[in-house]
């Protein structure tokens, strides 16, 4: 196929415009997690309510686990908390791990005792090393871990009914 060189600029531009048009339909802020479909990074953190007790990856065996990263200083987390409490009631098979991120332990404990504690396991990541290993860049973030300890999905931001149905529900049958 022999196209006259005069036509190459316009053809290239048509291709670029199509590409940009596609780009407009995407949300540039959505960033998929690099961990998806990979085993969750190994961790060992202290229980929020009992300093001697340590919690690690071993809890992932035999259960689907919801790992929720939150903080008492995080206002959106407070908004999400209501939904999480409701979700806890309708999802009995799901195990919950709450990671208190870069927070003051006392304030975290007060937060949970006043607002309610949906977490089966609550731990504290005070310096953020857990966050770094899991690729967290803000709160709240939620991971769904399967029975073999692999990351199924990650959502960055507040979870509500719609997002749960769209992104998480499909994994739990």
């Amino acid at each position, binding site marked *: 196929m022999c196209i006259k060189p005069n036509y190459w*600029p316009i053809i290239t531009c048509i291709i670029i415009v199509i590409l940009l048009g596609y780009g407009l339909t995407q949300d*540039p802020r959505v960033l998929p997690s690099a961990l998806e479909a990979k085993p969750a990074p190994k961790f060992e953190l202290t229980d929020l309510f009992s300093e001697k007790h340590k919690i690690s990856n071993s809890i992932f065996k035999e259960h689907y686990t919801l790992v929720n990263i939150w903080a008492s200083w995080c206002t959106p987390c407070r908004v999400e908390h209501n939904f999480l409490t409701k979700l806890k009631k309708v999802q009995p098979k799901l195990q919950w791990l709450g990671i208190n991120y870069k927070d003051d332990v006392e304030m975290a404990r007060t937060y949970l005792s006043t607002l309610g504690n949906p977490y089966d396991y609550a731990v504290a990541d005070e310096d953020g090393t857990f966050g770094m290993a899991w690729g967290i860049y803000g709160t709240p973030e939620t991971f769904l871990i399967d029975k073999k300890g692999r990351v199924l999905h990650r959502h960055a931001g507040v979870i509500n009914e719609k997002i749960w149905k769209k992104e998480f529900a499909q994994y739990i049958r």
Partner: protein
Amino acid sequence: MIPELGLLSLVIALMFSILSASVPCWPLRYRSDALSIKPWLYAQTAFVLLAYALLTALFITSDFTVLYVAENSSRLLPWYYRMTAVWGAHEGSILLWVTILSLWILVFTARKTVWEGEPKEKMLSVLSFVQAGFLAFIIFTSNPFLRYFESKLPDGQDLNPLLQDPGFLIHPPILYTGYVGFAIAFAVAFVALLTQTFNQQWARALRIWTQVAWAFLTLGIMLGSWWAYRELGWGGFWFWDPVENASFMPWLTGTALLHSLVVSEKRGQFYSWSLLLALITFSLSLLGTFLVRSGVLTSVHAFASDPARGIYILAFLSIIVFTSLSLFAAQSGSFSKPIQFEMVSKETALLSNNLILFVLMSTVLLGTLYPLMMQMLNWGKLSVGAPYFNAIFAPMMAIALALMTFGARASWREDSFKSLCAKVKIEFALALLACILLAVTTSLHSMAFMVGVGLSVLLIASSLWQLKLAGRGFPRILPMVLAHIGVAVTALGIIVNMSLNHEADVAMSLNDVIQIGPYQAKFVDVRNRTESNFDTLTGTFQILDSRGKLITSLEPEKRYYRLRRQLMTDAAIYTTPFRDIYIALGNELSDGRYGVRLYDKPFIRWIWTGCLLMVLGIMVSLYNRSEKHVY
């Protein structure tokens, strides 16, 4: 009342620009021969300027019932930032774009050119069409005069702290003047293709308009780089950020256009190239405007994303680009001429120059759009950064530097490789000497480094020698010499800086001394202070020479802007011709020490000095031409 007047002004300006755009397109029997659209263009400019002035007035008086003012200003902001906060976010900056386009149109309308009469009316029609498109965009999607009466906040949200810096006062207007100025070249090329008219006289006139726009664009990019260096706290000068690339691409093709027009003016050749480059450069300007505001690419530079605005600009961009490039596809055939030069000649050098710059522009374009393409084809998310761009730019710049040396010395039409080599043999020896000296005095023996430095020195030496050879004819080639030396100086600055810069990231307590470059930095004081709209932690560092004598004191700050609750690093810099010492203050650590970043940046000022030389070259060229009357 004033905001409403502002919006009304814009609407009136839009009406005039629609008139100016459409009337020249009507067949002659529907309009009077004597009807000139010039008064409408003057009116259009006046009303846009009025709207801009009114918005500025709203900022100065801190009228927070206007949403845009409330989001970007505060009563505590110093007056010079209040005046310039007008272009601090999307709505105001696009109004600035339109205002600058109005001013360009004003100058183009008023000036006597070679295109007077029919061609000029058509060109003004094209320019008015662009103007109308942007005015409609502002009125319908980005109105800066929107009111918001429900706010109960006592003050505005303050200008983004990253923008509260002198660089912000000058970089956007100057950059836009360059960016937008290529619209003139676009209009000329469009009409040239439409009426199948282009000759050496047109090329000469077009060259001057392009030179002015290019000079402003060069200056604007340089200011952006300088500002980022001072402002961002870690001394980088270029990040291959999508928005930076968006300004760099028109610069690359603009440079090619300038050179192509030289051949068009002097030899009557390369008409198709010149016209295509003129169309593409402005199209890239529009593409840049799109990328920054549509949310398609994330960038530290980008304005808030809004798909509705993105769709509008993309549609507008498509109309302009498709129309002009289709016209090119259909009509440029009439400009092709038989080749009148040999393999080794100045023409070939300039043709290669066009090709190289085109390839560089395509490289940047590909790198910028690649992440988007990957996503579209579902190949995952990827970011393209410095490693890709540097890998391609380095070898091509080396080729370009060599070409510049030989091309400038080559004869028109016919030359030979042997005679070219003979011409540059002294400079070549000099460059080789410089390389050897460098290899001996510094610890760097990388081939790439030496080749880069050697070629830059070769270009400088060759240009200077050419100046000497020109004797009394030197004013004529002085612009070229200055600009080429400017490129070499910038290249040299980049190469040396990237190879020899040094960073120290340490924890310091008071009275600690650390070696940085050939100096010693002593941490002597740290204190808190409160200013109008920010609180600051200021550290004092004494710079001592190798014998312990005090040279200067540097005071880096860590600022907390209260209204936006934003933390900012304000680095302190000690500048000398051959290096900068750059200090940024970090946080106080748990043991009472402070995190401090010290940088030794050799040759960094050369990068921007080179750009200034390029602009100086243009100024000399315009001065040379100022004796002639019409362009």
